[in-house]
């Protein structure tokens, strides 16, 4: 029996598929996702109240010891172009819709959303990211190896990286002011917001508050709280008066946590790593053993054949010899017979001659 490369890979694929299937089936039973730690804190950004004063940017820089954000605060020209979160700017306010008549401009503050099931944590192979029970997703620079998978995988582009730091660059991002909230303070941005557009509190309370606002002013709000379910939910919640895709957020975001997309596959990886070497070595040993046995058998057969041939040869030779011997004997007998007959005839002839001589 022989096994082709294709057949072999197909067979192992089935094994891996079964393992992945069982992982998904496990996730599908009962509660299908992590609903967040009870009493976790969060923040609600009401974009209908935000006036784009950028006080939050200033407060954030101050709290985190970062350089003061560019430009004077009353200078609106900074909104001419979209800015993004960097290692020096944990939070950034952008203008998404311009003012028209008595419809004010729409701004949105952007920063790490502190996902309930963060992608950055799911891709990090040194476990530098942790979702804390208080709400924030924390980052441990001491274990970071600088692969920047987290920066690339974030669906909100909310992670900055110290590209200018040549020796010990780290990921830089909003910490939800973990140190401050541990002490019972508000995060810097929420405290600084002059419009009360950023509200800090228990995530559950904030959801209730957001629903209340939508119910009270259905004309003012889009009937959706961004971050309640999107990509499994986030600690930062956003309310808006315009469609979320106008605010640079995915409008039909899946309610499935993004890490779930790869968890089925990744759960198989350890299995593959542990099983494959053994499996492959086993196959190798099996094939080798099979070859060895086949060789042995072949050799034995050859030897046997050789022996048989030899034996047959000997018998034939003996037979030939016997045949030759008998032929020789026959020939000798014949010759003897002939000689005897000759001798008899000669004797007869001599006798006759003798008789003739006697008779004359």
């Amino acid at each position, binding site marked *: 029996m022989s096994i082709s490369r294709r057949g072999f890979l197909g067979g192992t694929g089935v094994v891996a598929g079964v393992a992945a299937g069982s992982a998904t089936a496990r996730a599908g039973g009962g509660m299908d996702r992590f609903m967040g730690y009870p009493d976790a804190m969060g923040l609600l950004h009401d974009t209908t109240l935000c006036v784009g004063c950028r006080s939050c940017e200033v407060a954030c820089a101050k709290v985190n010891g970062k350089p003061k954000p560019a430009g004077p605060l009353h200078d609106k020209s900074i909104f001419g172009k979209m800015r993004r979160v960097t290692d020096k700017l944990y939070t950034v306010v952008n203008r998404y819709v311009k003012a028209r008549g008595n419809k004010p401009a729409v701004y949105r503050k952007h920063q790490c959303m502190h996902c309930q099931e963060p992608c950055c944590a799911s891709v990090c192979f040194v476990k530098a990211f942790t979702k804390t029970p208080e709400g924030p997703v924390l980052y441990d620079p001491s274990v970071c190896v600088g692969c920047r998978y987290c920066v690339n995988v974030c669906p909100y582009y909310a992670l900055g990286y110290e590209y200018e730091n040549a020796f010990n660059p780290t990921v830089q991002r909003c910490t939800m002011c973990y140190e401050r909230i541990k002490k019972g303070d508000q995060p810097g941005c929420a405290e600084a917001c002059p419009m009360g557009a950023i509200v800090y*509190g228990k995530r559950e309370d904030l959801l209730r508050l957001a629903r209340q606002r939508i*119910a009270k002013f259905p004309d003012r709000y889009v009937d959706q709280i961004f971050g309640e379910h999107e990509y499994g939910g986030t600690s930062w919640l956003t309310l808006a008066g315009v469609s979320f895709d106008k605010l640079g957020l995915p409008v039909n975001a899946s309610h499935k946590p993004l890490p779930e997309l790869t968890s089925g596959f990744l759960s198989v990886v350890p299995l593959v790593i542990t099983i494959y070497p053994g499996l492959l070595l086993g196959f190798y040993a099996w094939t080798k053993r099979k070859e060895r046995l086949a060789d042995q058998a072949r050799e034995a057969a050859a030897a046997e054949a050789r022996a048989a041939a030899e034996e047959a040869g000997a018998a034939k030779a003996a037979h030939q010899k016997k045949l030759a011997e008998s032929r020789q004997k026959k020939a000798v007998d014949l010759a003897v017979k002939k000689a005897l007959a000759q001798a008899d005839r000669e004797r007869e002839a001599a006798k006759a001659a003798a008789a003739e001589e006697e008779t004359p």
Partner: protein
Amino acid sequence: MTTMSGRIVSWIPAYLALVAVASTASEGCRRPAAQAQREVGPGVLVLRMPSALGKMRRPPVEFDHDRHAAAVRGDCKTCHLVDRTGMVLPKFGRVDDGKSAGKLMDHYHDRCVGCHKRRGKGARGCGECHAKRPRARSSWSELRMDYSLHARHVLAQQKRCADCHHVYDEGKRQLVYKKGAEESCVACHTGRTVGRRPSLRLAAHRACVSCHLRGKIAGRATGPLDCAGCHGADRQAKIKRLGRYERLLRGQKDRLWVTAKGGKIRRVPFDHRAHEKTTTRCSTCHHKGLASCNKCHTLVGIPAGGGVTLEKAYHDSKSERSCVGCHRKAAGQPGCAGCHHTQEAEASQGSCAVCHRGPLPGAPLPSPVWAPQPPAVLPAFSKDFPERVTIDILARDYAPSVMPHGRHVRKLRDLAGKSRLAVRFHGGVGALCAGCHHHAKPGTRPAPCSACHTRRGHPTRDRPGLGAAFHRQCIGCHQKMGLDSWLGCQSCHPKAAGPRKRGGKR
């Protein structure tokens, strides 16, 4: 060898499928831009086979009616049939579609291509008419018969109402004019043809275009005959408007009591005449004919009214036809929205009595009058009603803000005095105060903001802190009133005189 080539062949469909998917995906990315660009004029019709006869093998034809009408110098008979009365029939050279797709196709091909050949102009090849084009947006816009346009038709027809208005007489089995029963077209002519009653589209084109055509033949100044003349937004804007026109009378009362059969709440006085002036056409409220609301909308909701109850018909805040919805829309104008944008969607307690101010059902009805409120008279400035208010309770990075209280109140009083709605709904000076001093009893000195809005507030109970409460109130109002006064902190807070002090004066 055979097996190798066989394997490659088996991969070909998969490869082709992949290429197809990739090309559609890239096309999908490009499409929206093209869609946004292409817009066709109001005269462009898309000709396709009636669905009952089957599908077309080639793409439908985009036909520019205005261009063809110009090419035949407005002679409709070149393409259309004309009946005994001289009325142009709407179909293209035929009475009906017939029953055979092939015959209909031949009809179009013979007449269109034949004419193009005879004239030596126009499209010849199949693909020139049956071209595959990206989806287009038509600039077609609905023409509304408003008071002014109606008045111009009345003048042109020398008050012969029967030229347009008719009812179907069952006995005579024909259309007759009935005085006092004039209706809007939509009362009978709906979206589709039912029996012998043509759809609104068909009826309007038959009646309007034929009349305009007769006028043109008689050499009179008449209405447009091309599509864009009625349905082009730019041409609509150029339609001459009359400055003065007669009020349309069809037996409506000037003032009336709004009643509902079986209603238990106090009646609402309604000034029909005053409401007529706030709009440009009857159909703003009378969306399906000129019957009164309670004819189709009853307390329980009946099929004639689409199941919409009378209560909802009057109070649905999302509808622009309902009383509440229309008044809400009016309150969204810049002059009003400053205060009104904080009003919740759900009506507050006690707000029923604002409109339901008449006698209870069954009681004798006085004259239904809704008199304007007396103009708001501002009290003299005093400690309780200050000219200026210095807000220094939170001054930290900036000097205290001096709010010209008197100027604000005067501005609100003037704005409210100019609005016909406000003079009937705002009860004196108290309503003006309530715009900012919410929850305060009108006419009394309100509690200071800091009484409820503490320094940190109760954010999760939606009661903002004092700073946020001030900023929301001031900036929110300025934004909604269209005042671009949010120029930065210093437009309200002058810079502190000395060096900045953190956590300074409180």
